[in-house]
C-alpha cells in the first residue's frame, strides 16, 4: 500500500503541476470554448504533453513510453483536473493505451503503443449505448462475415469520438444486451466505410460523440483480445479509467476548495471578511475533511492498480463514488460561497461545477458504484 508518493512520483507531480498551471490554465479551456474550436483540444498542448511523456505514461519504455504505471497516470490526471485541461489524455493515454496493453496482440502493441506514446494516434472507446453506464448493456452487433465481422449499432457519449483516429468498439458477437459473455472489442478506423460520427457539445465544454456503425467491416486482425471474451479485460481497464477520472475529479475539487478558501479570506460583507463567519468556517472545515478523504481513496485505488491487487474493483468503486459525491458538495459550495459572482460565467466556479457532473457520469455514477461495491462485498 502506497498512500504516500515516492520521491520519483513527487517529482512527476511537481512537473505536471507546473506544466498544467503554466501552459494549460483554465483560460485554455475558455479559449477552445469561446472560439468554438472544431477539435475541442489544443494540438500545441497535446504536442507538449507528448513531449513530457504523459501520452505514453502507461506504456513500457521499450514501446516508447515512460512506464510510470497507473499511479503516475493518476498523478498527471489530478493535475490536469486542477486546471480543467481539455486534452485527449483520458481517451488515449488512459483507455486507449490501457486496452491495447491489456488485450492487444504483440503485433498490435508494437504497432499502436509507440504511436500513442509519440502522439501520432488518438483513440476513443465506443462503449455506452444508454444514458447510464453499464458495460454489459451492449446491443451493437458484430456479425461474422467471411474471415471478419460486420459491426452495426449506435454508440453514445464516446469521449473524444470525433477526433480519434481509431475507435475501440465494444460489440456483441453473441448473447443479448446485459450478458457479460459474448462481448468483443474491435479496432475500427474512424474513417472506415459505414462509420458516421456526430460530435456533441457537452455542458463542460468538452466533447463526446454519437457514433453509428452501419455494417462496418473489420477483419479478424482488428479484434482486440479474444472474440466473445472481452468483458474481464474491459472491466479491468474500465477500473483504471474510473480511478483516473476520480483522480481528475479530485484535482477539480481541490482547485475549487482552494479558490473558495481564498475568496473567504478576501471577500468583505458587513464590514468584515466573510471567512470570519462561523457557519462558513464550519462548512469550509467539512470540505477540507472531504478533500482529505478523497485524496486517500484516490491514492488507494491507484496503488491497488499499480500492485494489481484483488481489491481493485472495490477500491476503484470506492474512489469513483466517494469522490463523485465530494465533488458534488464542493462544487455546489464553491458557487454558493462565491455568491452572485459565482453564478457568472466570468468566474471559473461554474466550469468546475459542470465538469464535475460529467465526470460523475463517466464510467458509472455514485449510485452505480455503490451498488457494485455492495455486490463485491457479497451483500
Amino acid at each position, binding site marked *: 500500500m502506497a498512500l504516500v508518493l515516492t520521491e520519483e512520483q513527487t517529482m512527476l507531480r511537481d512537473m505536471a503541476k507546473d506544466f498544467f498551471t503554466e501552459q494549460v490554465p483554465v483560460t485554455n479551456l475558455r479559449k477552445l470554448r469561446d472560439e468554438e474550436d472544431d477539435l475541442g483540444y489544443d494540438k500545441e498542448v497535446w504536442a507538449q504533453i507528448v513531449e513530457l511523456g504523459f501520452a505514453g505514461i502507461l506504456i513500457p519504455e521499450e514501446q516508447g513510453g515512460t512506464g510510470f504505471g497507473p499511479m503516475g497516470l493518476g498523478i498527471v490526471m489530478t493535475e490536469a483536473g486542477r486546471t480543467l485541461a481539455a486534452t485527449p489524455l483520458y481517451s488515449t493515454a488512459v483507455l486507449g493505451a490501457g486496452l491495447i496493453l491489456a488485450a492487444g496482440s504483440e503485433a498490435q502493441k508494437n504497432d499502436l503503443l509507440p504511436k500513442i506514446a509519440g502522439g501520432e494516434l488518438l483513440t476513443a472507446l465506443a462503449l455506452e449505448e444508454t444514458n447510464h453506464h453499464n458495460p454489459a448493456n451492449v446491443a451493437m452487433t458484430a456479425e461474422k462475415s467471411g474471415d471478419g465481422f460486420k459491426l452495426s449499432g449506435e454508440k453514445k457519449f464516446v469521449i473524444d469520438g470525433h477526433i480519434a483516429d481509431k475507435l475501440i468498439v465494444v460489440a456483441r458477437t453473441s448473447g443479448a444486451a446485459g450478458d457479460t459473455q459474448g462481448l468483443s472489442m474491435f479496432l475500427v478506423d474512424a474513417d472506415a466505410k459505414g462509420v458516421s460520427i456526430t460530435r*456533441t*457539445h457537452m455542458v463542460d465544454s468538452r466533447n463526446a460523440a454519437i457514433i453509428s456503425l452501419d455494417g462496418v467491416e473489420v477483419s479478424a486482425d482488428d479484434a482486440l483480445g479474444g472474440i466473445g471474451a472481452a468483458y474481464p479485460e474491459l472491466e479491468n481497464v474500465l477500473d483504471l479509467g474510473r480511478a483516473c477520472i476520480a483522480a481528475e475529479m479530485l484535482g477539480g475539487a481541490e482547485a475549487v476548495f482552494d479558490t473558495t478558501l481564498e475568496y473567504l479570506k478576501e471577500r468583505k460583507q458587513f464590514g468584515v471578511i466573510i471567512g470570519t463567519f462561523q457557519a462558513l468556517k464550519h462548512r469550509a472545515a467539512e470540505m477540507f475533511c472531504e478533500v482529505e478523504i478523497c485524496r486517500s481513496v484516490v491514492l488507494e485505488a491507484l496503488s491497488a492498480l499499480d500492485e494489481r491487487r484483488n481489491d481493485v474493483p472495490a477500491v476503484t468503486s470506492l474512489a469513483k463514488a466517494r469522490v463523485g459525491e465530494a465533488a458534488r458538495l464542493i462544487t455546489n459550495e464553491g*458557487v454558493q460561497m462565491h*455568491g*452572485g459572482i459565482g453564478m*457568472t460565467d466570468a468566474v471559473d466556479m461554474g466550469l468546475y461545477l459542470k465538469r464535475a457532473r460529467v465526470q460523475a457520469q463517466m464510467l458509472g455514477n455514485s449510485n452505480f458504484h455503490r451498488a457494485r461495491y455492495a455486490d463485491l462485498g457479497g451483500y
Partner: protein
Amino acid sequence: MTALDTFREETRAWLQENCPESMRTPMPEREMPWGGRNASYPNPDTKVWMDRMASRGWTAPEWPAEYGGGGLSKEENKVLQQELAAIKARPALTSFGLWMLGPALLEFASEEQKQKYIPEIIKGEIRWCQGYSEPGAGSDLAGLQTKCEDKGDHYLVNGQKVWTSYADKCDMIFCLVRTDTTVKHDGISFLLIDMDNEGVEARPIKLISGSSPFCETFLTDVKVPKENLVGELNKGWTIAKRLLEHERSMISGMGMGAGAASMGGMEAVAKENFGTDGEKIADTSIRQAIADHKMDQQAFGLTLKRASAEAKSGQGMGAASAMFKYYGTEVNKRRFELLLDVLGTQALGWEGEGFDSKELAVTRSWLRSKGNSIEGGTSEVQLNVIAKRVLGLPDA
C-alpha cells in the same frame, strides 16, 4: 343583482370585445409586453391589448384613478382577474414599474413625481429596471458605494450596479445611491436615472447557465436632476426595505414547478431510464430518493398553504418569507441534482445535436437553480434572519 355582479357583467362584455384573439393564447417569451420607448411588437395585438387595458387603467387596476389607474376596489380587481383568467388572457403589461417602482412611488414620492411617473408606468411608456446590488454589496446591500454628490443644481453619480435585470433594454433605472459616506443605512438615497444619460452603460452578464437578463450597469459622472430624488435625502433605505420584501417573496415561488414536468415528471423519466418492475421504478434506491424528494416538495407546498391559511386567520407564522426563500430554493436545487442523476448523460448536453430541447432545458435550469439560493438574499442571510427575528438568538 349586486354592484359587483354588474361590474362582472360589464367587465366580461368589455373583455370579450377588446381582448384580441391572439392575446388569449399562450405567450411566447419574445412577445412579453415589457413596453418602453424602444419596445418592438412582433405581434401587433400586444400593443393593441396593452393600450386598451391601459386606457381603462386596468394595467394597474387598484391604483388611484387620478394617476390613470383603474381605481378598483380589492373585490372588483378580484373579479377582473377572474374574468381575465376565464378567457386565458395574457398580461397586458409586464413591468418592474408596475411590480416594484409604482407602489413605492405611490407611498413615498412627491405629488409632482406621482403625476409625472405613474401614468407613464400604467401606459407602459417607460420601461424601468432596478439598481440595487453592487460588486461589493451583495448580501450586505446597505454597504453600497455608488456615490451621489450634490453639485448644487444637480446630482453627480459615480459607481457600478450589478444584477440590473434588462438594464440594456430599459429606459430608466431606480437606484439606491450613497449620499452620506459617514453613516451606513442612513446615508442611502433613492434616485431615478434616465438610461439615455451620458455616462450610463449597461452590459449583459453571462451566467453559468448561459445568457441572462442581468446586466452590469456602469454610472460614470452621470448628471441627474435634483427632482429625481424620491423621498427624503438619506432616507432611501426605508423605501429599499419595502421593495426587497416584495422581491424575496417573488423568488421563493420561482421555478418550483419546472424541471421534469415537460417529460411527464421525474417518476416517468426514472421509469424510462431504469426500467420498471410492475409499476415500480426498477432501481429501488432511485425510487426511494425520488419519493424522499417528492415528500419534501409536498411538505413544502403544504407549509406554504398553511402559512397563507394562517395569515388569513390572523395567526401568522412570523418572518415566514425567510423560511420559504431558504427552504424553497434548497429543495429546488436538490430536485435538479436528483433529476441529473436520473437522466444520466442526457442531462449533460449544452447545445446542438444529441439532446432534445427538453433535455437541454433541464441542464440549463439545473445550472440556473444554483442562483436561487443567492439572489434575493442568500440562504445564509435567510438563516440569519430566522435565527434573529424568529428565534430571537442574540448577536455576537
